[in-house]
C-alpha cells in the first residue's frame, strides 16, 4: 500500500503545473453555455494547446497514474473541462485504439488528439435506453456500404459533432445481443438530421438524431459485423471506468467554496450545516482514495477498466447530487436564481444517476458480475 508517486511521475506533475500556470491566464474567455459553435471552438482550441505541449495523448498512451495526475492537476488549476471532446477522447477514441484496425486508428485518432474533430455517442434510442441491446436502428448492406435508418436520442454534443460512434442492428433475425455492429458515421452525411432537445437546465446539451438511409462505408465498422455488443462493452467500460475521475477533484473544490460561502453568510454557525459539509468532505476524500485504488489496480492489471467502475459511479453520482443539495441549504433562496453559476451545476447533477447507465442498472451489474447473484 503506497500513496507516493515515482520521481518521474512527480516530475510530470511539476512540469504540467508550471505549464498550466503559464498558459491558463492567456486563454480566451469562456463562451456562453448556449453558444455551441463558440463552445466547440473553445474546447477544440484547448485540446490543440494540449497537443502542441505534448499532453494530448495522456488519456490513451500514458499510464493510469499519469492520467490521474493530469486530471487532478488540470482540475485543481481550473483548466477547461474536456467538454465537446468527451466522447472522442474518453470513450470512442480508446475503443478505436483497442478494437480498430491500424488504418482506422490512423484515420480517426490523430484528429481527436489534435483537436480537429468532435465525436458523439449514438447508442440510446427512444425504445432502447437501459435495455440498450433492444436497439432497432437498422443497417443493411449495399455493396461496400451500410444503409442506415432509424433514430437515436439523448445524443450529447450532436449539434457540433463530426463523427458519431453508432450502434446499428445488422442482423434482425439474431438474438438481440448478437446482431449489433459498431460504426463510425459522419454527422454531415446526407440523411442525418439533428433536432436539439432542451434539458431541464434549459440548455440544448443533447439532441435527437434521425437517420434516413444514411450511407456508411463498411470500412467504417469497428470490430466484426454483428460483434458490436462486445465492442460496446469496451466503450461502456471506458465511459464508466475512467471518465468521471477528474470530476471528484472538482467536487472537492466546490465543497471548499460552499464552506467559505457558509462562513461568509453566517450559516457556518449552524452545527447541522457544518456536520453535513464535514460528512461530504469524508465522502469526497474517500471517493478520491477509491479512485487511487482503482487506478492502481488498472495499472497492475493493464488495459480496460473493470466493473469496479460501477461501484465508483454508484457512489459518486449520488454524492455529487448531495453536494449540491448541501449547497442549496447554504445558499437559501439564492438556490433559485439561475444567474448563480452553480445553480446550473445543481441542475446538471441530476443527470449523473441516469447518464452512462442508471444507478439501478449499475446495481444490477455490481450484484450480478461482482457478487455473482443470479440474473433476474
Amino acid at each position, binding site marked *: *500500500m*503506497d*500513496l*507516493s*508517486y*515515482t520521481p518521474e*511521475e512527480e516530475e510530470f506533475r511539476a512540469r504540467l503545473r508550471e505549464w498550466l500556470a503559464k498558459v491558463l491566464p492567456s486563454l480566451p474567455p469562456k463562451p456562453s453555455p448556449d453558444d455551441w459553435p463558440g463552445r466547440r471552438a473553445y474546447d477544440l482550441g484547448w485540446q490543440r494547446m494540449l497537443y502542441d505541449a505534448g499532453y494530448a495523448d495522456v488519456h490513451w498512451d500514458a499510464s493510469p*497514474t499519469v492520467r*490521474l495526475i493530469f486530471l487532478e492537476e488540470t482540475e485543481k488549476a481550473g483548466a477547461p473541462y474536456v467538454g465537446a471532446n468527451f466522447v472522442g477522447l474518453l470513450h470512442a477514441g480508446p475503443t478505436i485504439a483497442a478494437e480498430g484496425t491500424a488504418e482506422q486508428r490512423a484515420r480517426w485518432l490523430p484528429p481527436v488528439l489534435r483537436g480537429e474533430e468532435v465525436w458523439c455517442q449514438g447508442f440510446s434510442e427512444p425504445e432502447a435506453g437501459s435495455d440498450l441491446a433492444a436497439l432497432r436502428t437498422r443497417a443493411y448492406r449495399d455493396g461496400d456500404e451500410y444503409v442506415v435508418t432509424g433514430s437515436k436520442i439523448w445524443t450529447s454534443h450532436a449539434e457540433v459533432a463530426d463523427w458519431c460512434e453508432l450502434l446499428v442492428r445488422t442482423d434482425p433475425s439474431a438474438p438481440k445481443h448478437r446482431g449489433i455492429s459498431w460504426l463510425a458515421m459522419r454527422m454531415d452525411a446526407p440523411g442525418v438530421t439533428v433536432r436539439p432537445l432542451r434539458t431541464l437546465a434549459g440548455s440544448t446539451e443533447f439532441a435527437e438524431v434521425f437517420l434516413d438511409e444514411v450511407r456508411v462505408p463498411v470500412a467504417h465498422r469497428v470490430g466484426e459485423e454483428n460483434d458490436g455488443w462486445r465492442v460496446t462493452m469496451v466503450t461502456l467500460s471506458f465511459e464508466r471506468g475512467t471518465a468521471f475521475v477528474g470530476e471528484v477533484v472538482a467536487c472537492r473544490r466546490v*465543497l*471548499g*467554496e460552499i*464552506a*467559505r460561502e457558509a*462562513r461568509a453568510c453566517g450559516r457556518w454557525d449552524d*452545527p447541522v450545516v*457544518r*456536520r453535513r*459539509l*464535514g*460528512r461530504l*468532505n*469524508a*465522502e469526497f*476524500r*474517500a*471517493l478520491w*482514495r*477509491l479512485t*487511487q*485504488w482503482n*487506478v*492502481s*489496480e488498472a*495499472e*497492475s492489471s493493464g488495459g480496460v477498466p473493470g466493473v*469496479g467502475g460501477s*461501484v465508483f459511479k*454508484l*457512489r459518486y453520482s449520488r454524492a455529487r447530487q448531495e453536494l449540491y443539495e448541501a449547497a442549496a441549504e447554504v445558499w437559501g433562496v439564492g438556490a433559485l436564481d439561475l444567474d448563480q453559476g452553480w445553480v446550473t451545476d445543481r441542475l446538471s447533477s441530476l443527470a449523473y444517476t441516469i447518464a452512462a447507465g442508471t444507478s*439501478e442498472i*449499475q*446495481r*444490477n451489474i*455490481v*450484484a*450480478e458480475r*461482482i*457478487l*455473482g*447473484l*443470479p*440474473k*433476474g
Partner: protein
Amino acid sequence: MRFQLTEDQRALRDGVRGLLARRFGAEALRAAVERPGLDRELWRALGAAGFFSLRLAEAEGGVGLGLPEAVLMFEEAGRALLPGPLAATHLAAGVVPGAADGEAVVTAVGGGGLVEWLDAADVVQGDVTGAVPMRSVDPLTPLWRVPVPDSAVEPDPLFLLLTAAEQLGTAVRMCETAVQHARTREQFGRPIGAFQAVKHLCAELLVRVEVARAAVYAAAVTADPVDVAAARLLADEAAVRGARDCLQVFGGMGFTWEADVHLGLKRAWIRAERGGSNTESEDLLAGELLIEVG
C-alpha cells in the same frame, strides 16, 4: 503509486484469516455467546502470532511492521467478530508489560466514557472511578460507563483507525453473509438474490464496503487525523448500515438469536460509540475545508 496490497500484506492477511478461522470460526463464536468471558488462551495465541506486537520494533521484541499491516489484521479480527479490547491492548504493546505477547489484557476508557471488558482487564488506561456496569447490548462485549467522562480527552487517532478497520471487517462479513444467503434461500421458486430489491441491497452493501476500504487503507498509509476521521465515518456507516441491510436480506431468520447477523450489528453499534460522538469527526472534517482553501 501502488495503492494495492503487496504480496507480503496479502500473505499476512491470509495468515491471520486462517488463524482466526481455526481458532474462532462460526462454532467458536456461538460457543462464546453461550459462555461469555475473555478467552485467555486465544489472547495468548494472538500474542504469539504478533497481533499485539506487530508495530513494535524488532529490537523491542516486536514484528516491526507498520500501520497498514495492523489495519489488515484488525480488519480480519472485525470480520471474525473476535471479541475483546483488541485495539487498546495493541496500542499498549511496548508500554504496558505483557501487552505485546498477549499475557496482559488492556482496556481503555473510550470516547463518551465507555469502557469495555473492565472486569477481564489486567490494566485499565484512563480514569474509571465510579464506573457502573451496563447490561451490554452485545453478548460478547461487557460494558461499563464512567459517570463523568473526561471530555477534554481527545480520542487517539490510532484507536479510531484500528476501530475503523474492525468496522470494515464486520462490514465485509455482513456483505458476504447477505450474498451467501441471497444465493441459497429460495422463495417463489427461485433464489431471493434473483429479485432486484434484494440484489440492490447487496450491491449497496458492497459499495459501502469498497468506499470504506479505500478510506481506511489510505488513512493507514498517511496516519493523518483528517483521513482517520473520514475513514471512521465511512467504516461506521459500512458496518452499521451493512448489518441492518444484511438483517433485512435474512428476513425473519435475521431477527433470531441463532443467525449471527445481530452479533455484527451490536458490535458495530458499540464500536461506533468507542471514539466518542460522530460530531467531532464531522467537525474536524468541516474545519479542514476552510483550512484547505485558506
